[in-house]
């Protein structure tokens, strides 16, 4: 691994948020930095420590990164800056950009988001021009009838051999028992639940807005959701929309939702690392200037040179 420095930092309102800056030690950092944050209840290191591994990959290629906990997750205290989870998550992301801007001297960011974090990243990008590229893993999906039917048939055929089938069947039955709440997700815990059609309208409108602003987008989908993908199947009818044609789309059959296997991690790091590094190392256009940084970060004194 190339040399890098890691600096823990507390930032945001009341220094409530906690993050870790990773900077290449022996080269001039890229003009665009990378942000990473939580997937579900995992803390800032990410599922299977994937954010740390990605930070090391990016540092080796000259890209700085900040991984951090949204308010109320990991080591960060809950923010009291907005009426709902989504607003507070956007505030956390903006505070992360503020501190990275101040400490790294960069004004543009690529954000890597996973699962529920995809909505947070898109929302922040929609309101803050400093976010110039988004890598979105297993976020919004709108598979249509053919795709869903194919999945059902393939799963039905595989079910007799599926070692986890009895457990899954039992959980499905439990979920559908009247009055059962034990296996239902807690409302509004990580994402505010919305009907699928509302989600689709929001996704389409937000993505249109981002594309118009020339925000680069990478859409990644794991093999946990499906076993094949013929034609951007997870996007459903949206895959035909002209504004979606410029987005990078990749179905990663051998990567699972929590990047559990080493092989899956390698594929993820290769795809995301390449894409993020390419967008961070590109010279930023003059039209994309970030807004002035706000707040005073509390930088920790300790830095280190990793071997």
């Amino acid at each position: 691994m190339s040399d890098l420095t890691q600096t823990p930092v507390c930032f945001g309102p009341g220094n409530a948020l906690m993050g870790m800056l990773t900077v290449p030690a022996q080269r001039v950092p890229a003009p665009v930095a990378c942000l990473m944050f939580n997937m579900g209840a995992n803390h800032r290191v990410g599922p299977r420590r994937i954010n740390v591994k990605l930070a090391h990959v990016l540092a080796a290629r000259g890209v700085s990164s900040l991984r951090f906990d949204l308010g109320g997750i990991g080591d960060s205290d809950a923010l009291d800056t907005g009426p709902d989870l989504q607003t507070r998550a956007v505030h956390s992301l903006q505070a992360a950009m503020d501190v990275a801007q101040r400490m790294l001297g960069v004004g543009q960011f690529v954000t890597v988001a996973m699962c529920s974090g995809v909505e947070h990243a898109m929302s922040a990008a929609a309101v803050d021009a400093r976010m110039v590229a988004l890598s979105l893993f297993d976020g919004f999906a709108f598979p249509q009838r053919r795709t869903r039917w194919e999945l059902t048939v393939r799963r039905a055929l595989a079910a007799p051999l599926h070692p986890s089938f009895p457990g899954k069947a039992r959980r499905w039955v439990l979920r559908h028992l009247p009055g059962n709440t034990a296996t239902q997700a807690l409302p509004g815990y990580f994402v505010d639940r919305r009907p699928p059609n509302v989600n689709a309208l929001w996704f389409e409108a937000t993505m249109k807005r981002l594309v118009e602003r020339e925000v680069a987008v990478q859409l990644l989908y794991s093999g946990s959701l499906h076993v094949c993908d013929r034609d951007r199947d997870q996007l459903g009818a949206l895959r035909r929309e002209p504004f979606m044609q410029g987005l990078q789309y990749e179905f990663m059959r051998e990567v699972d939702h929590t990047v559990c296997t080493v092989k899956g991690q390698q594929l993820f790091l290769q795809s995301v690392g390449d894409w993020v590094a390419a967008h961070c190392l590109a010279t930023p256009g003059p039209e994309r200037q970030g807004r002035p940084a706000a707040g005073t970060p509390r930088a920790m004194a300790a830095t280190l040179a990793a071997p």
Partner: protein
Amino acid sequence: MTLFTPLMFGPASRQVFGLFHAPYEDRGEHTAVLLCPPFGQEGLRTHRFFKVLAERLARAGIATLRFDFYGSGDSPGDESEGELDGWRRDLCAAHEELRRHAPDAAIVWIGARLGATLAVLAARNGLCDPARLVLWEPVIDGQGYARLLRERHVEAIDTTFCIPDLSWRRSLAREPDALPEEALGVRLSPALQAQLRALTPQSLPLTALHETLVLAPPDDTPTAQWAAEQQSRHMPVRLAYLSHPLDWTSDPYPHSAMVPADALSRLQGAIHE
């Protein structure tokens, strides 16, 4: 407002990340606590638990340090460099860091799973001097632990893919006692595999230099036997039972317990028993 201080400490060539929770107020406590996290997915899984425990202890006037072993969590290093001897030195470096922040306190180590095992190994080494060990479900059979991780890895693959890769399960059936090269998202270095293979109850003798409290589930007969053997050697060790709903190896998720209140209270109380 954050009430902890993030730190990097240890030798320049092997720094590790930690979070120091200063006591909220001086309550005349002369105890400090070093939290030693479990390995791999178990460590990620219990991050929130130990954060809450550290905050509770700090609120009770007890200085607390939690940290990530080299190559794990937020610490630098690649997980393929992980092995017990280096982690044992990390634990002593963390002890010295806590000593620096709380110079007059008696330092209690609370270790969970492989973190508890490392606490036994580090305390026996004599380079650092805990006043007391609290060992929560210590790993005393490395081979059995590796097999458990491997089985859970296969279960995770089965569960996460809607049509799983059966090669993992076939491999487990073919060679049930093979040491895994990876488990639940973590690479196990060749050195760590060899160390786990050699880790047995007989290789973990306690010393009389400090008191030890072992917390284990009621059905954990091997750990009870190990504690009884230490008692027969006149070591100051006590076994207590602790049941909890925390699943060490699962993903953090709202459907499963992340910070079971009973376990939290039990560990908080354990430092003075």
